[in-house]
């Protein structure tokens, strides 16, 4: 069967997701077999399983998908991707949905975007992940109770020399920042032009 024969079933939302996901054109081949949801360690916690998400993407249910918790339950373990008989890049599609939900202001889960922002904020600045800085900043601003409960563990880690209070830093932070700025600029250009990835 040719791919062209399914062309008419592609919703706008589906086109957008496909364009932003490497090898996203595989999405049209979903058989609705459910191997993905069955393989997912967090499937039971999801509003919709990945199988349902793919069918909702095809049906153009943009808001329902982007406001769901599904992609935020994804821990990038790639079991779904490894098992998908149609070779759909499912985990990468979850990343696309995370990005879209944040960009379009539809993310109902606030902690994961905050963690990502905090983490990359430190990497942008130092070129290395500064664990103590990331955990302290993220937990204090988003999950103070959880931070308190982790204090004992943190002290044990510190006592064993597993936490450093000083960030490591690369030499060429300027070079890294120039690369990041350029990449951001190119991404914005591409989204404005609505081009494929």
């Amino acid at each position, binding site marked *: 069967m040719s791919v062209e024969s399914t062309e008419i079933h592609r919703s706008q939302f589906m086109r957008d997701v496909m364009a932003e996901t*490497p090898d996203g054109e595989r999405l049209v081949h979903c058989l609705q077999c459910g191997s993905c949801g069955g393989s997912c*360690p*967090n499937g039971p916690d999801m509003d919709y399983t990945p199988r349902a998400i793919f069918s909702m993407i095809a049906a153009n249910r943009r808001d329902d998908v982007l406001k769901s918790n599904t992609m*935020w*339950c994804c*821990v*990038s*373990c*790639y*079991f779904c991707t*490894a098992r998908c008989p149609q070779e759909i890049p499912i985990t990468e599609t979850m*990343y*696309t949905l*995370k*990005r879209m939900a*944040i960009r379009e202001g539809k993310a109902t*889960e606030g*902690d*994961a*975007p905050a*963690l990502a*922002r905090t*983490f*990359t904020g430190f*990497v942008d600045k130092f*070129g*290395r*992940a500064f*664990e103590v800085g990331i*955990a302290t900043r993220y*937990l204090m601003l988003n*999950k103070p109770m*959880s931070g308190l*409960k*982790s204090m004992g*563990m943190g002290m*044990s*880690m510190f006592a*064993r*020399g*597993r*936490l*450093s209070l000083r960030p*490591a830093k*690369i*030499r*060429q932070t300027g*070079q*890294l920042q120039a*690369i*990041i*700025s*350029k*990449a*951001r600029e*190119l*991404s914005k250009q*591409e989204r404005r032009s609505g081009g*494929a*990835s």
Partner: protein
Amino acid sequence: MKYAYYPGCSLEVNSASYDVSTRAVMEKLGLQLDELDDWNCCGATEYFTQDELVATSVIARNLALVDKDHDQLVAPCAACYLNLKKVDKLMCDHADMNAQINQALAAGNLKYKAGRVRVRHLLDVIYTDVGEAALKAKLVQPLNGLRVAAYYGCQVVRPVGEFDNPEYPMKMDEMFQWLGAEVVDYPVKSHCCGGHMTQLSEDMAFEMIRRLLQSAADYRADLILTMCPMCQLNLDAYQGRVNNYFNTNFRLPIVFFTQMLGVALGIDMKKLGFGKELVAAEPVIRAKLEGQAAGATA
């Protein structure tokens, strides 16, 4: 053999025992590791949640930094390994991404030719490039009497699954059988530790950790061998909180496979970073190995 070495941020401090044991073991095996100069964080999963091109470009900077004298880059961390491997593959397979990433790299006066560097995981290097005969020839302290669960986690074996089975990997099992250990069945060996989920939802994360500890306990493992700093952190540092949460009583040491391999090669445990884990490993290992030695002489 010589390899460029990408330690990754976790190995600098919180999993320094993985770094020191990796360096000690590689030296003992006669393999040269040259740390990549001025490497930057791979971003784990966090840049991918925000911007794909930024994520891939940040990773590609490291590939571009590999000098002409090296064509292989070794990463011990699962997330670093996957990210480096994934970006090289994306650049090989997608001309448009290759062009865009190189455009971003050019802003830092760098470029990377897709496919030039072969990214490898440390386990693959030791299993394949050293191999059974050479490892057995260097075996000083057989691990007889020690029951280990070989835990692989996700991102080394999936989605690429380049050197082992993505569902039921065996390379670490085989390696420790060569060294005399009793490697227990561990049906959840490639299941997920939850990654950063401990920071997002403890309900979800602790259950993922519990399953891994429970299975190892069910198979009466003395300890769990890991090859990922995130897995070590989640199973070791959170073990106490998981016990409180489920009212369980797990006491399973979580040890990097390089630490245990180092013991087998006769390297002093002090030089392998033991003692940094929250659930102490050294007493368990000493008791088992000495018990076995006493049994053998009796």
